């Protein structure tokens, strides 16, 4: 009966294994929810099912037969349709043109009327008032999501894979989305539904699969798992040995933030960072963590009061932040951190070039700085003139850390310290972070990995929808409590 299944599927990207022997079966007329933390492997599973990635080992089974899709469109031709979280819509085409993109009715002359009528019927079924002739560019984000759903419905799907479709929808639109899901289920479509909203999972799903670190840790039928049970299954593991022992933060405040807002992203955030402290910031992707950090260091316009070691400072640019002793390590290593086509030296000194001269840069001093950085941060590169893009992810991250540390900042904001790097280098980076704190510097570590925040930080701030949802320290720093705060689930333990 199973339409589409994964049989013992593993996937590795270079040295990093992201899926370990996953079994998953999608049945017709069933909504199957896939839940897990950021980085647990949900999107990799969706990409493999949708034909966008091949498994490293194991099989994809369609109607019980092993298949290998060369591309997404090939999977779609078999009736497997993915609704992506990032919209695959052509912004300058109309709604109708997008719905029928690649499958336009008519011969040489496009049948505009037929496309418009069919689109209007689909949109009416979804209970929206979107004009089929509107351009995608002019639509709101929820409307675009509805168009994306309409497009998937028009595909006559046997299997529908939905990646957090409700994340950007309003309450009313979520209602009509649920109606459509119920209708499709009744028609015998198999649905894979990924979501962070546990209440929605409890409401919709006939079957639930919980992922953790690329493994299936729990499978359950409707009613077998409460929201609490889901949160517990998603988290909870022992990893004490993985993290360096915590230190003793001082009492003196290093950074005081009062009422910081970044227009449209972060509202009224206040906190204090103590000297020698590692402060974690947790929250879902899109909760405003990165925007908060970028607002603090002058990369985004922000309002609010900032004090560094008791003195008020005005930070309007990254230069100002450097002058105040702040530094920021971006989460986007490849697009905002390093010049991938330039050598190690150029990358290391780029943010502090004024120390090395104006008209004649002292390359010998730069080389000396690179020597000490490679020693201090254990950067392993066959040649120093090789492009940074050819380094492994771990060595890139160590180079980026060295670059950020070159101005000798007192307060360091690190966004996703270990994204996309191997386990060994992760441990090294954790040790570096602890060492910096032990030297009396103060650190803010933003991370989507709950265990990382807990293992590393002395105290955790949890963000939700641009605001501080809560603060946890000591024994209260559990994954369960962080997840509840981040997702806004109100249970008895919270």
């Amino acid at each position, binding site marked *: 009966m199973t339409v589409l299944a994964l049989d013992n599927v593993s996937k590795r990207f270079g040295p990093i294994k992201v899926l370990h022997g996953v079994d998953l079966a999608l049945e017709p007329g069933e909504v199957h929810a896939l839940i897990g933390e950021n980085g647990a492997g949900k999107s990799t599973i969706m990409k493999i099912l949708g034909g966008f990635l091949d498994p490293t080992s194991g099989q994809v089974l369609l109607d019980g037969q092993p298949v290998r899709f060369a591309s997404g469109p090939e999977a779609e031709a078999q009736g497997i349709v993915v609704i992506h979280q990032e919209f695959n819509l052509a912004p300058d085409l109309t709604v109708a043109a997008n719905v029928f993109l690649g499958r336009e009715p008519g011969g040489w002359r496009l049948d505009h009327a037929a496309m418009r009528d069919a689109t209007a019927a689909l949109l009416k079924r979804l209970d929206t008032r979107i004009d089929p002739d509107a351009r995608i560019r002019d639509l709101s984000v929820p409307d675009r999501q509805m168009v994306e759903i309409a497009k998937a419905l028009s595909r006559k799907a046997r299997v529908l894979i939905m990646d957090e479709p409700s994340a950007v929808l309003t309450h009313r639109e979520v209602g009509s989305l649920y109606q459509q899901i119920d209708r499709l289920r009744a028609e015998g479509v198999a649905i894979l539904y990924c979501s962070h909203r546990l209440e929605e999972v409890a409401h919709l799903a006939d079957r639930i699969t919980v992922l953790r670190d690329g493994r299936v840790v729990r499978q359950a039928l409707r009613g077998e798992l409460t929201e609490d049970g889901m949160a517990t299954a998603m988290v909870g593991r022992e990893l004490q040995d993985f993290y360096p022992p915590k230190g003793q933060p001082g009492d003196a405040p290093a950074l005081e933030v009062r009422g910081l807002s970044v227009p449209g992203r972060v509202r009224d955030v206040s906190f204090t960072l103590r000297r020698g402290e590692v402060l974690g910031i947790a929250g879902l992707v899109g909760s405003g963590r990165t925007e908060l950090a970028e607002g603090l260091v002058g*990369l985004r316009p922000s309002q609010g009061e900032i004090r560094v070691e008791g003195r008020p400072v005005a930070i309007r*640019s*990254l*230069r100002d*932040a*450097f002058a105040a002793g702040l530094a*920021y390590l*971006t989460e*986007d290593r490849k*697009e*905002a*951190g*390093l*010049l*991938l*086509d*330039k050598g190690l030296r*150029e990358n290391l000194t*780029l*943010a502090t*070039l*004024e120390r*090395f*001269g*104006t*008209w*004649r*840069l002292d390359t010998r001093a730069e080389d000396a700085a690179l020597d000490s950085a490679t020693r201090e941060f254990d950067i392993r590169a066959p040649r120093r*003139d090789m492009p940074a893009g050819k380094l492994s992810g771990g060595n890139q991250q160590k180079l980026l850390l060295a*670059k950020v540390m070159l101005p000798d900042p007192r307060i360091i904001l690190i966004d996703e310290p270990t994204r996309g790097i191997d386990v060994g280098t992760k441990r090294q980076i954790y040790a570096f972070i602890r060492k910096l704190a032990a030297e009396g510097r103060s650190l803010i570590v933003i991370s989507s990995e709950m265990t990382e925040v807990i293992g590393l930080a002395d105290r955790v701030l949890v963000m939700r929808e641009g605001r501080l949802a809560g603060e946890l320290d000591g024994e209260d720093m559990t994954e369960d409590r962080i997840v509840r705060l981040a997702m806004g689930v109100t249970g008895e333990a919270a």
Partner: protein
Amino acid sequence: MKLDLHTLGPLVALVALVILGAVLNSAFLAPANITNVLARSAFIGLIAVGMTFVITAGGLDLSVGSMAAFLAGIAIIAMNAALPGLGSNWGTILLGMGVAVLGGIAAGYLNGALVTKARIEPFIVTLGTMGIFRSLVTWLADGGTLSLDYGLRTLYRPVYYGGIGWITWPIIVFAIVAVLGEWTMRHSRFGRHVEAIGSNDRVARYSAIDVNRMRLLTYVLLGVLVGLAVVLYVPRLGSASGSTGVLWELEAIAAVIIGGTALKGGRGRVWGTVVGVLILSLIDNILNLADLVSPYLNGAIQGVIIVLAVVLQREKRTVEER
């Protein structure tokens, strides 16, 4: 630094052209011909050095040819206007030079400000200012030619034709600017920032580089060098018209590309640009001296060279990726 065929390609082509020229016509290596080729290269060369910085920072400037015509026009008007008051002397000529260079700064600033402050694509901004400058000079000349006063022209003439021995002033100025430009690109903080911005402007911004200011500076630098080229160009003919400097922008961009600077930015090579300029003028010169191919085919041969240079760049990249 490793030297590969890709880096040395333009240089090899230049040497081959010199040998070809010498074989085809004995007059080719005569000092008079060499001086002529180099002096004529100087105008495009100065502009192309500035263009190297603009392109390396991820920009483009199509307006430089029209800008040169416009600056020549206002310099001539300024000198003719100052003649009754200041007299026919070097003071008047220095005033004209000042107008050309300051005008270049202003014009470069205009381009740069529209690109960085108004956030308009460089291609569109400079396509617009290209039309504006061209039309302004035509209007100032009333559709005809702006001519410098005869006495001033005689006085000013040695700036193009004179020099030290057979090395004329344009050659000297071009050489100095080329060396300074190469130094700036390779060894100065400004050059490093320009390359970083062209390589990835987001990384540059996250490295506390004032991206907009640096981009603006590249356009101003180019404006100054266009002004300098005009200072050397005006004494050659003593006039300016709506057809002055036509297609200079494309020759300058072609020289930059032939020299191995990436059009998408991030990697600038000023010496390569100089070689590119020389290649383009040598082709022109050889076709004029030899009867092998009609000089009318000059553009076609230059076109082949430009495309070939880019194809060679791309081949190199795919080899690296393997």
